[in-house]
């Protein structure tokens, strides 16, 4: 099962059956799901464990705990001391890391293929036996606060995005930043991490993804050996926390040290809930591609090049998520232009699609990009593992991946026009503006001159 077999299929767009055959899946008796994709181009393997618990499962006062626990997962078990996990991976000639999102938490290693068993042993150990030592916890919390300072506090764009999201959502936990609010971090205690770990870190809430130079039968055997002995557990009830209907436009301003203003617009839109029956999420994906998917897309051609309204303009949308969807537009105004002029320009691009739809050429181009992107993704084992983990985490079986691509290929210009009309109205819109604040003179002079 070489990945090359997918390619003619991708191109012929007859993906379903054989694309399915390319990955292999098994569920252990304890509920753990194992998905294997064979890619034999280099003698290495990516091993990833995804827990279906992310910041959207946190509660008030404990925001950021999903991510803090992710950090603590490297701080030892009774048999593997603090920092030992990283050392063992490094000694195996590997690299490793982890990430937390709104929807899930993932841990991954890339190692020479013969080290896969050792990685499974380490992951299985910390799936059940984490120490959560209070002294290590206190130290690591300081590291996480430094991470928040680095990624958010001193980053005007991140601050704006954080505030925008917190405004667009009021009930749904997507309103909370993944890294957590600083004050919650300052007041977090080891017991918070412990209860998070006990709640969610169980084989029946996890998926193991393996991509690389492996035989799937051998991987299933290794997985049963290392993960098979872990006991499943009752998971907490997940409340829907649906966002109430937005009743009108919301606006906010963030003031931060910067030079370029920035406007971000968030429209509430749906995401994929039923791969077969849904239409709108696929049309929204193609709308994003036609607006800003490449250098010849509308934003670049019209807003940046022709009108010079923007120095940069982007559109982004992800059709896969556990929670509600957002379609983002953003841009920085060009010289002599204002944020409101740019906002009007961004809206005008939407109106153009609402009134005149998109051309057949544009749609074909967007689809060509999409197929090429899928093939280019095969060049990265990490990208393949993350794609599998992400789909599984949001509840779309990876087996349906081929169908997703087919549904995208089937989108028509009329459907793109229809979603532009249906979702892009003031009712569901939140607009954030970055109002740049000049630096104190002392900060400006030495660097400008150097």
């Amino acid at each position, binding site marked *: 099962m070489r*990945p*090359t077999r997918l*390619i003619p299929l991708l191109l012929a767009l007859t993906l379903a059956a054989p694309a399915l055959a390319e990955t292999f899946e098994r569920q252990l008796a304890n509920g753990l799901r194992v998905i294997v994709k064979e890619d034999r*181009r*280099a*003698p*290495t393997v990516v091993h990833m464990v995804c827990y279906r618990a992310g910041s959207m499962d946190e509660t008030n006062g404990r925001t950021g705990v999903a991510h803090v626990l992710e950090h603590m997962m*490297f701080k030892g078990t009774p048999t593997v001391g603090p*920092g030992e996990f*990283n050392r063992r991976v*490094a*000694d195996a*000639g*590997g*690299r*490793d890391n982890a990430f937390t999102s709104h929807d899930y938490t993932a841990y991954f290693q*890339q190692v*020479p293929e013969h080290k896969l068993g050792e990685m499974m042993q380490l992951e299985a150990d910390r799936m059940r036996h984490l120490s959560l030592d209070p002294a290590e916890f206190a*130290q690591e919390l300081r*590291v*996480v606060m*430094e*991470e928040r*300072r*680095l990624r958010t*506090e*001193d980053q005007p764009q991140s601050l704006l995005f954080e505030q925008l999201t917190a405004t667009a959502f009021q009930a749904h936990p997507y309103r909370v930043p993944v890294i957590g609010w600083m004050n919650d971090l300052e007041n977090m205690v080891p017991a918070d991490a412990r209860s998070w770990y006990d709640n969610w870190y169980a084989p029946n809430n996890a998926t193991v993804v393996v991509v690389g130079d492996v035989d799937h039968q051998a991987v299933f055997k290794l997985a049963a050996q290392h993960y098979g002995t872990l006991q499943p557990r009752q998971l907490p009830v997940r409340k829907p926390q649906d966002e109430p209907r937005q009743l009108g436009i919301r606006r906010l301003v963030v003031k931060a*040290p*910067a*030079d*370029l203003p920035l406007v971000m617009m968030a429209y509430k839109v749906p995401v994929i809930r039923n791969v077969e029956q849904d239409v709108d999420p696929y049309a929204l994906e193609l709308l994003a591609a036609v607006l800003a*998917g*490449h*250098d*010849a*897309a509308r934003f*670049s*051609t019209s807003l*940046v*090049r022709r009108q*010079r309204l923007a*120095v940069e303009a982007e559109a982004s949308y992800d059709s896969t998520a556990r929670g509600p969807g957002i379609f983002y537009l953003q841009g920085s105004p*060009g*010289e002599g232009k204002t944020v409101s002029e740019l906002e009007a320009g961004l809206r005008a691009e939407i109106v153009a699609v609402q009134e005149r739809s998109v051309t057949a050429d544009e749609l*074909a*181009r967007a689809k*060509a990009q999409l197929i*090429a*992107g899928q*093939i280019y993704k*095969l*060049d*990265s084992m990490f990208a393949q593992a993350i794609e599998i983990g992400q789909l599984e985490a949001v509840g779309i079986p990876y087996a349906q991946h081929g169908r997703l691509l087919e549904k995208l290929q089937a989108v028509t210009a009329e459907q793109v026009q229809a979603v532009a009309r249906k979702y892009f109205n003031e009712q569901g819109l939140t607009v954030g503006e970055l109002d740049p604040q000049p*630096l104190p003179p002392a*900060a400006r002079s*030495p*660097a*400008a*001159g*150097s």
Partner: protein
Amino acid sequence: MTACKCLLLLFLFLVTPVTSAAPPIERWQTASGVRVLFVESHALPIVDIQVDFAAGTAYENFAQAGIASLTRELVELGVAGMDETQIASRMADVGAQLSGEVDRDRASIILRTLSMGDKRRVAFELLRAILSTPQFPAAVFEREKARSLAALKEALTRPEALVKRAFWSAMYGSHPYGRHETTESLATLERADVLAFHAAHYTAPRARLAIVGDLSRAQAEAVAEELTAALATSPGMTAIAVPELPSSSEQRIAHPAVQAHLLLGLPALKRGDPDFFPLIVGNYTLGGGGFVSRLMKAVRDQRGFAYSVHSHFQPLAQLGPFEIGLQTKKEQAQDALAVTREVLASFLREGPSDEELLAAKQNLIGSFPLHLDSNREILRSVAVIGFYELPLDYLDRYSDNIEEVTLSDIKAAFARRVRPEHLVTVIVAGE
């Protein structure tokens, strides 16, 4: 001696798969004199091409700083018979992607395309046009200049950009590696300057081509000829001056950020220098080895001072920097700096322990295939080998070269290359 033998034995089981992981590299020269490196790989229907010109920022005149990036930006925005939107549309039609970058030494144009005949032919033809008939339309020049100015003004408010600029200036002074674009230098650039910079630097003798992917040797040769046929045959290569080492210094720049950004370092290493291997093996223990390095343990794990701290060597055509970098809450910047300096000093005094040396080699050799696990990674490595004229067996010899490094090699190399009397420190947003 005994320690060395143990090591050799230990690595026997690793050496076999590692050696086989290095892809065979083929080399030839086009009729126009451009050197080409090629790795044939049919696993995926993809072709990656990187064209590097000796046209990085080191080749700018002081008054024209910023011209290297602007030229690279503009080269793909209009060719004979096609405007920027037509080029981008055709690229998108066949699913091809054009990217690039500019560093001190190189200006790169990178193409990724599907290898199917009808797709790749379109992409290659566009790349050929970009290499041979760029037009630099006046209106596009004005717009891109304005965008560059806007991006620079924004960067000059960012602590991470400010610390980098001040750091390179402190290390290199008036040497070309120390120069930076300023709002003044950018504002004075004219279209004619870009035309002149392009004519002087985007030439055959200054170009190197790297091709990886789904082509036969014959196809790759034909593509290389096609792409380079119209390149000018002069001017040729020019040398970058040897930088003088700075005196030790410490510079502080005020900034309202909540975190201080710190960089410490000095000009240290050239491409192709035999000290390369002892330095990267030693640096793994100091601050290159991710979570397991001494800096990470002392600064992050034991004190919680920073999310990340690293040290690394960036070898260039001339002495490139050794740098240590971290970000930490303003109030503890001084303490974090003291710890960092102490870790460096004790490393320079003692070098790695036997266990650390062993762990470094084990990881660097064991992880070697990870760095060549995709066409993208192979392209990156092969382009460096081609541009800096490293030996063609560089990848084959890599593991042996790592393995042969001894403790005394490391101590001697660090003593030669990282001398505290030349170490500069820059702190932005410290108290």
